[in-house]
Structure formats: structure tokens, C-alpha cells
């Protein structure tokens, strides 16, 4: 055997290991999280700024038209109206900011900690989604997706928690020694995965256009991102229509 034979043997027979879809999805999710972390969301503050700017320009308009007393009166009204707009805008803006991911994140962490401290972490204990998913029937007005075959993540069970006054599905998973709570509720908004930190806990949020999912844990962000990726991959698999009937798979 010469070098060329060796080369040919290796090329012809050695195993190759391409990256599978799950790994690809995990990498995409993680890089998306990274770029999200790099550019903190500014949509809400800029909306407030825009409204404030609108208010300011409204209050300027009447001053340019100081022609008649009626006009002056209009200007007065305009100013008052602008002030009202500005005030309402600021209040709404601040409220929407406070009601945004910040407070929700805190609530999720509080729920997670409470479940860990006083329990129960799960009211239905099962690693089988055929047990966990039906358990939610009659307890919720929606059917949360439950995945029990996320590689590396063990499904421990599920529970219902009251989140902002609404009964919400929580799925408990375990990775290594870390407990992960995944909060799931229906909301059609689609959001790119984002990573938040609250008091040492990591939170990853993702959505699929039907459900909002928030994973809370003391596991590192990468583990949560991987869970999100695995979840989305499992979801995609579930949503995909069956293409090949089982009988036509060649037996070799």
C-alpha cells in the first residue's frame, strides 16, 4: 500500500459526522441570543421619545399661528392638549416599560424559586408527555405543547401556576442537576429568542407564533438556549406533515 492507497481507503471508508439539524438550530439560537445581548432592545424608550416629540411639535404648532384671539384660544387648547398627550404618552410608555420583560422576568424567577423552596415543582410527575399533556385538560383553557424527548433534558412533570391572575402551564425539566421551569401560554406574537438575567437566574424567551415560552433556571444560558433550540426542533418535527409512510422505508 502506498500513500495514495491509504488516502483512498480513508476517503472511501472512514465515517463522516456532519452537524445534524438540532446542532445547527442550537448554534443559530445561540448566535441570535448573542446578538440580542449585544444590542439591548430600544423599541420602547424610542416610542416614548417619539410620542414626546409629537407632543412637543403639537405644542409648537399653535404658536406659529398667533393671528386672532380665536387662534390664541386654539393655541391654548392646543398646548393643553399637547400636554395631555405628552402626559398620557409618558405614563403609557413607563407603564408598558415596567410591564415589559423586566417585571415578567422577576415574576417568573419568583415563581420558580417558590416552586423550588416550598413546591410543588410539579403536580403531575411523569416523564411521558402522554401523561403530562392530558393532565392539563380542564385546568387550562389551552393545550400546551409538551415534549419529553429533548436530548439531555429530562421531563419531570408539570404544574399550573397563577401568573398575573391567569392559570399558566409550567413544565419542569432537569438538565444535569439543574431544574428548569418552562412557562407556556398562548400568545400569537413571534419573538426572536432572548436571554435575560435576574438575580443570578437565566431566562430564555422564545415563541413559535402560537405559544410564548419562558425557561427559567440557574443552569447556564447555553443550556437554556439549547433547550429552546431542541424545543423548537421538536415542534417543527411535530408540525411537519408526514411525508414517507412507514411501510415504504426500505428494510435494509
Amino acid at each position, binding site marked *: *500500500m502506498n500513500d495514495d492507497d491509504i488516502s483512498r481507503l480513508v476517503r472511501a*471508508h472512514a465515517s463522516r*459526522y456532519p452537524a445534524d439539524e438540532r446542532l445547527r438550530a*442550537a*448554534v443559530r439560537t445561540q*448566535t441570535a441570543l448573542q446578538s440580542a445581548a449585544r444590542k439591548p432592545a430600544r423599541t420602547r424608550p424610542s416610542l416614548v421619545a417619539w410620542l414626546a416629540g409629537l407632543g412637543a411639535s403639537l405644542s409648537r404648532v399653535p404658536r406659529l399661528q398667533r393671528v386672532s384671539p380665536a387662534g390664541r384660544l386654539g393655541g391654548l387648547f392646543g398646548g393643553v392638549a399637547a400636554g395631555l398627550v405628552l402626559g398620557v404618552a409618558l405614563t403609557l410608555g413607563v407603564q408598558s416599560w415596567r410591564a415589559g420583560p423586566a417585571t415578567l422576568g422577576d415574576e417568573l424567577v419568583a415563581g420558580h424559586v417558590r416552586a423550588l423552596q416550598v413546591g410543588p415543582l410539579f403536580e403531575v410527575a411523569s416523564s411521558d408527555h402522554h401523561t403530562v399533556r392530558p393532565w392539563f385538560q380542564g385546568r387550562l383553557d389551552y393545550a400546551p405543547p409538551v415534549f419529553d424527548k429533548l436530548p439531555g433534558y429530562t421531563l419531570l412533570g408539570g404544574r399550573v401556576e397563577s401568573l398575573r391572575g391567569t392559570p399558566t402551564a409550567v413544565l419542569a425539566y432537569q438538565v444535569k442537576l439543574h431544574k428548569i421551569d418552562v412557562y407556556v401560554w398562548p400568545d400569537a406574537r413571534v419573538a426572536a429568542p432572548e436571554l435575560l438575567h435576574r438575580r443570578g437566574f437565566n431566562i430564555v424567551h422564545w415563541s413559535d407564533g402560537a405559544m410564548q415560552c419562558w425557561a427559567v433556571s440557574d443552569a447556564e444560558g447555553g443550556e437554556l438556549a439549547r433547550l429552546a433550540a431542541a424545543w423548537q426542533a421538536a415542534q417543527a418535527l411535530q408540525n411537519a406533515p408526514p411525508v414517507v409512510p412507514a411501510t415504504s422505508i426500505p428494510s435494509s
Partner: protein
Amino acid sequence: MSEGQRFEAQVLPHLDAAHNLARWLLRDARAAEDATQEAALRAFRYFASLREGEDAKPWFLGIVRNCCYTALARQQGRLEITGLDDSDWDHATHAAATPEPGPAQRLAAQRERSAVDAALRALAPALREVVVLREFEDLDYRAIAQIAGVPIGTVMSRLSRARTRLKELLTLAGFGQPGATDLKP
């Protein structure tokens, strides 16, 4: 084009090569996935250090290699992984070179595969990586030298040593002998 899109276009096409290299260096499925993910994250973080017009493949595979060696060092801290002396691997070499006696009906192709895989796995990592990069990725000596962080001459000598070693192992496994299933028809 945003940085994320450029990353997707330039680096992610090489994810297969990255995972293959990691899998061959670490010889463990889970560890290879972890290393590939970590490498991709690092690559994303330092994407700006990839020069305009520079080929992303050797650059990315260099990061993958570093992540793998870090993982290897963690796994077996006492072994001098990067050393050229592969005597540590000799015992593994002979253990692995003998193909497992499979059931008779096992296909010849599978026997060849497992024999070649075993021989490749038995090489020291420094030799294994040049073979993987050369034979699977078809990279030239310059690119392999960049990935492994060694001079081109070293790449050539390692490749030559790797082939000599593979030849020994494959001969031991029955390749290239009269009556062997492959090679000389």
C-alpha cells in the same frame, strides 16, 4: 448585510466540517457537539477578527480545534496532547487495530468502515487532525498549517507519519493482503 447575516453566510456553511473535526478529535458525540457549539459562539464573538476576503473555513476550524484541545486537556489532563510523541497512544493503537469479530452476515463495507475508523481513532490527535483535514476537507497544506498553528513542513511530516502509521494499522487489520476484500482487486 448585518453581522449576523454575514456570519450565517460565511461561517455556518462550515458547521459540518467543524462537527466532523470535533467528533474525530474528541471521539465522543456529546463532547463534539459541545465543542462545536462553543466554537461557533466564539467565532461569532470574534467574527470581527476575520479579515475582509479571508477564507472563513480555516479560521473557523482553527477555533474548533482550539476548543477541542481545551476539552481534551480537561478530559485527560495528564497526557501531553499536543506533543509529537505518540507513544502514549501505542497501546490504544494495537487494541483498536484488530477489527471486532462481527457476525458473519455483516457486510464487508461495514467491516472496512469499522477497521478504517478504528485505525484513524488510534492515531495521536496531532496526526489524526491532519488526516481529517486533508482527506475529508481536502484542505491544502497552508490551510492545515494555519488551523493547527504549525509550519507547513510540520504538516507534511505529520501527514507522512500518519499515513505510515495508518498503513501499519490497516495491514494489521488485513487490508492490502492477498485475499483482502479491498484495495487490490
